[in-house]
């Protein structure tokens, strides 16, 4: 296992030697992210196929009814898997130590508001540095909140539409609108908010490997999440959880 991970790190992280790393996403969380990501893409593609203009649909030719059939099946499978992952995530948040820590760090606080104002001032060059962020800062908390709200709404309306015959048509009409508009919102938000964060941001281009390795460099950690960095360095318990030793030492805490 260790060998495998080293291959991973060498492939994606050329500066691995002599650096200290911190765990941002543990193995479990990375798998959750991966499954959710695949489901999201499948759902978006198969879902928006219903909104294609007529002439594009015609280009599918005689196979279009078969395409439509598999579109429906895939959409339902991906939807079910996404609901299951989401439920598992709730379970993870409530019953696993790492999950509980995640939940605690993710809850909104007053500091988020001051952070937001501080960051705006920094963006407008009224401040030299942005505020010291904890493990999750306001932007990530908002995104996470939007994800939870979106996933809940999409699951509920999706299940309603799946079992359409049991419900009044008016409810289904609302569900149709919400499902479609929420999908547009989610896809746009992912493109503008999340894709920027992990792809386009100057230091991240072309892609941040964090989603695969789960690791963040000490230097970046100190800059981006200064408060969290301090907390970890001061607390030996947290050091055990987050600090990953230099990889030459054959560290085993990667799977946290």
């Amino acid at each position, binding site marked *: 296992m260790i060998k495998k991970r080293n291959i991973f790190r060498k492939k994606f992280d050329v500066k691995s030697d002599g650096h200290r790393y911190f765990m941002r996403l543990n193995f479990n969380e990375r798998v959750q992210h991966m499954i959710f990501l695949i489901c999201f893409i499948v759902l978006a593609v198969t879902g928006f196929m219903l909104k294609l203009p007529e002439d594009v649909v015609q280009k599918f030719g005689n196979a279009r009814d078969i395409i439509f059939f598999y579109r429906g099946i895939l959409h339902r499978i991906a939807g079910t898997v996404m609901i299951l992952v989401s439920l598992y995530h709730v379970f993870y948040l409530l019953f696993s130590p790492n999950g509980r820590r995640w939940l605690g760090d993710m809850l909104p606080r007053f500091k988020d508001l001051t952070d937001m104002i501080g960051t705006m001032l920094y963006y407008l060059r009224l401040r030299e540095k942005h505020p010291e962020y904890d493990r999750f800062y306001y932007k990530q908390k908002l995104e996470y909140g939007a994800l939870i709200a979106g996933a809940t709404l999409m699951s509920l309306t999706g299940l309603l539409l799946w079992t359409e015959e049991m419900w009044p048509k008016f409810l289904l009409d*609302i569900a149709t609108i919400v499902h479609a508009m929420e999908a547009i919102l989610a896809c746009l938000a992912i493109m503008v908010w999340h894709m920027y964060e992990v792809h386009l941001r100057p230091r991240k281009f072309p892609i941040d490997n964090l989603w695969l390795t789960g690791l963040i460099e000490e230097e970046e950690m100190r800059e981006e999440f200064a408060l969290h960095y301090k907390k970890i360095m001061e607390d030996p318990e947290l050091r055990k959880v987050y600090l990953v030793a230099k990889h030459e030492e054959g560290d085993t805490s990667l799977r946290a």
Partner: protein
Amino acid sequence: MRFYGLLTVKSLILAMIFMILQVAIASAQTEMVTDTENCLFCHRYPNMGRYDKNGNKRIYYVNEKLFASSVHGKLRCKSCHIGVDQIPHSNVKKVDCSSSCHIKEPSTGKEFSHSNMVDKFRASVHGGGTSDTAKRFPEDLPSCKYCHDNPMYRAPTGVWGQSEALINETLARCMGCHTSSHWAERFYSHFTHRMRKRRSQEEIVALCTSCHEDQEKMARHGLESIGTYKDTFHWIQVQYGVKDAPDCISCHVPVGYSAHDIRPRTDRISPINMDNRVKTCSNQGGVQSCHPGATTQFATGRVHAYGMKAQLLASENQEDLAVNEDISLVIERAEEDLSSKELFHYKVLRLVKLFYKILIAFVIGSMLIHQGLDYVASRKQLKSR
């Protein structure tokens, strides 16, 4: 003399061969079309036609082969084109499908006529109505020929699945007794023609929308344009060519109903009348079941999207929408057709949509600004190091 005599014998034989050939060709032709009136004497020429007073091109050419394989291929021309007695043709009446032709209807032995269907059609929504309930703008209403265009009998495939062997097997059984293959195939086609849908779902929608999508024409009759169908999942399925996808007639003329007898939804026998909705959605005459578990609540909901009528009723000043069109009849009918409950539903749906539009614009807009600022700041920070 001898030589001369031989020549005459030779030429006589040649002449006979020619005559036999001619008779053979002629008899082959008469088997194709029963042209006892010799109309094809002129009408067989492809260039035959003229421009009428309005400048429209009228084509009088009859393609013999095509006509022979059409459903009316066995009829004489004058059976339908009444009044064609002299040349040039004057005093010709328009073809009336309810007139009797000289073919015997086998079940009663009387002269055949489509009048049963025509009577039904006249009483339906598409008919002109009776003298006291005559409709405005009768020129907008479809005639028989608007939908029926003397269709071809298709090759005898596609009824018992796509198996050609099975079709040949069935036909072979007919021809065991009915030895004329031409007759047997025609009779077989006569039956099988009615056992399959002639038009695909997309073609049905195209046919109905050729009138019903015309907003002005519909407004004249107090109807709204049928673009509202194209906002439904039903239409998406039709677009993708899904088998048994619901087109217009799937719900408006389900199994057991006649397309000639479409009634308004207030009529008790209409399949989209509230009392018949569950059956229409769930189980059409035991043949097709799209929503087998449909409840009353599900089935009595609105299937088409809300259109012009809801818009008109919901808007404060209806005159603004009625700028160029005479839509007073639509407004009048809207109040009858839309219940206050439906209007409430429309308003709620509109609100939900508006809410989401604002939400998307706000969220994505502020995200863009935020990320733009972040980009500038990060670049600056990166450069300063």
